[in-house]
């Protein structure tokens, strides 16, 4: 009996977020008739894929012991650069637009990585700086007005479906699966954990910590670039104010998913659960007719609850 209870407690501790998510979904199915409809589930997927893709890259940065505040601005940068090129050159310009968006974002990611990995700038300072600079440059370049007129064919990416699944969700799935593989199965992912857990020991054992850090911040920007391009596909336009605050939602999803800010810990599956936990709560509030203004309140409370539960269960586990 006691053994059973301890085992149960340990499962709850390790899979707490997953259990909370399953309970939440079960509750939503029971309490509403609309949650389980195809249209609503499609909405949840559609609305959370962009944050989800950003959160996949953020997972690497958090496990490394840092985070990337610039990803919201980078998402907007990708959509503005991509949309502008596509508008100016029409349908043949779509691949050029995508390449241009990715290139612009890699420039930002490269700057972040260079500042953090090689100049030793604190990740908070470095990415706060690029976040502000990039957003400012977008305003300067666009005069803070949206760009319309992206070829309509491009909305297939944002609004189309494959086998009934929204395309952005399919992109999210591909990004999450491949980055999950990189994180958990390859030497690079292994080094992200090693450097995040003990940078000094990793360096002593011959791990090139600077190169790992650099690559992670480039990767985070690359994910933001993909999100920005999908954003163009959803609206056939680009707004300079797009993706404001996405970086914080993505960090929240990663932390709720079980990766502490101290680094060295976390899993890609945790991040995916974290993204959809926050997403289903937002969707639920919506279905219950609660004002959308309450949504950030809910996100913040879940974040605090998840971290507090994690800290409490750890103390519980080691104290007694």
């Amino acid at each position: 009996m006691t053994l059973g209870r301890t085992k149960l407690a340990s499962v709850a501790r390790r899979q707490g977020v997953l259990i909370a998510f399953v309970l939440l979904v079960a509750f939503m199915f029971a309490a509403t008739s609309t949650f389980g409809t195809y249209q609503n589930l499609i909405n949840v997927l559609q609305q959370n894929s962009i944050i989800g893709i950003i959160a996949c890259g953020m997972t690497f940065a958090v496990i490394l012991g840092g985070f990337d505040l610039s990803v919201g601005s980078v998402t907007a940068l990708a959509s503005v650069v991509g949309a502008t090129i596509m508008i100016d050159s029409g349908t043949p310009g779509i691949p050029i637009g995508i390449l241009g968006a990715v290139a612009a974002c890699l420039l930002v990611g490269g700057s972040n990585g260079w500042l953090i990995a090689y100049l030793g700038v604190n990740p908070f300072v470095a990415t706060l700086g690029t976040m502000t600079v990039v957003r400012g440059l977008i305003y300067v370049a666009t005069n803070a007005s949206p760009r319309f007129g992206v070829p309509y064919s491009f909305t297939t990416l944002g609004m189309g479906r494959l086998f009934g699944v929204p395309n952005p969700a399919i992109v999210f799935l591909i990004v999450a699966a491949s980055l999950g593989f990189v994180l958990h199965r390859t030497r690079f992912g292994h080094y992200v954990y090693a450097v995040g857990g003990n940078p000094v020991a990793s360096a002593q054992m011959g791990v090139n910590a600077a190169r790992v850090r650099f690559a992670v911040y480039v990767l985070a920007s690359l994910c933001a670039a993909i999100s920005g391009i999908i954003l163009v596909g959803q609206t056939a336009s680009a707004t300079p104010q797009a993706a404001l605050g996405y970086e914080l939602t993505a960090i929240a999803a990663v932390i709720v998913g079980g990766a502490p800010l101290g680094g060295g810990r976390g899993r890609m599956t945790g991040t995916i659960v974290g993204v959809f936990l926050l997403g289903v709560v937002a969707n639920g509030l919506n279905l219950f007719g609660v004002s959308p203004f309450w949504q950030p309140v809910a996100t913040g409370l879940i974040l605090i609850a998840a971290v507090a539960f994690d800290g409490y269960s750890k103390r519980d586990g080691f104290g007694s």
Partner: protein
Amino acid sequence: MIDGSVSAVGVLLRAQAISKSFGAVVALHDASMHLPQGEITGLVGDNGAGKSTLVKIISGALSPDSGTIEFEGAPANFASPAQARSHGIETVYQDLALSGNLAVWANLYLGRELTRGPKFMHVLNKGAMLSNTREMLKRFVRDVPPIGEPVELLSGGQRQIVAIARAGAWGSKLILMDEPTAALGVAETKAVEDVIFGLKRQGLTLLVISHNLDQIFRLTDGIWVLRRGRVIGYRQTASTHPDEIVSMITGAAASVGTGA
């Protein structure tokens, strides 16, 4: 030879006239010593005698102001611990240098991971690393710690065993240990000492710094004594006595060895 200087066995490492100052503080003055091949040698002295400085110079973490190091008969003034490691000199640091969040196998293989599949992808071959780790640890550890567990869940003694085993696992020739059992209990100290003996049986040469003279006498074949940056002398453990070593450490009796 009155100090029982080694003659039967070869010399793996020789330090000649090493001096090192930090500003006005002289950490080592004209220090010469050597390590007999395949033996456990102790390095003792009071706080500030220069023990850690000497070990750091041998391991490449510090470079001497003057003097030379010879390793396997060749000059070996290493510029970095990585360079020393590539020649087979490993250091077990006081702060262990393990990654607590990584499993035992991952710490053992840190920086040397086995991969499989297409080369550019570097997919980890976890299965091979797990079974190799078990084999490697079995060579000199009686109770192999749980290999799949994160190191931070192990006891202090088990962690130290992992750190020492890692130092001995990669074809190294010389292992430098600074206070290997400083924060450990009696049983754990015993377990770590067993691992140190295990490494010696594998033919490795070991240098151990310890403040614990009982331990020095249990472990070592010979002892170098430092006092205020100078090498006072060498004694074979079997033919000396703790009282003599203490008097050499404190300078209570004038014992001048040939090592200085």
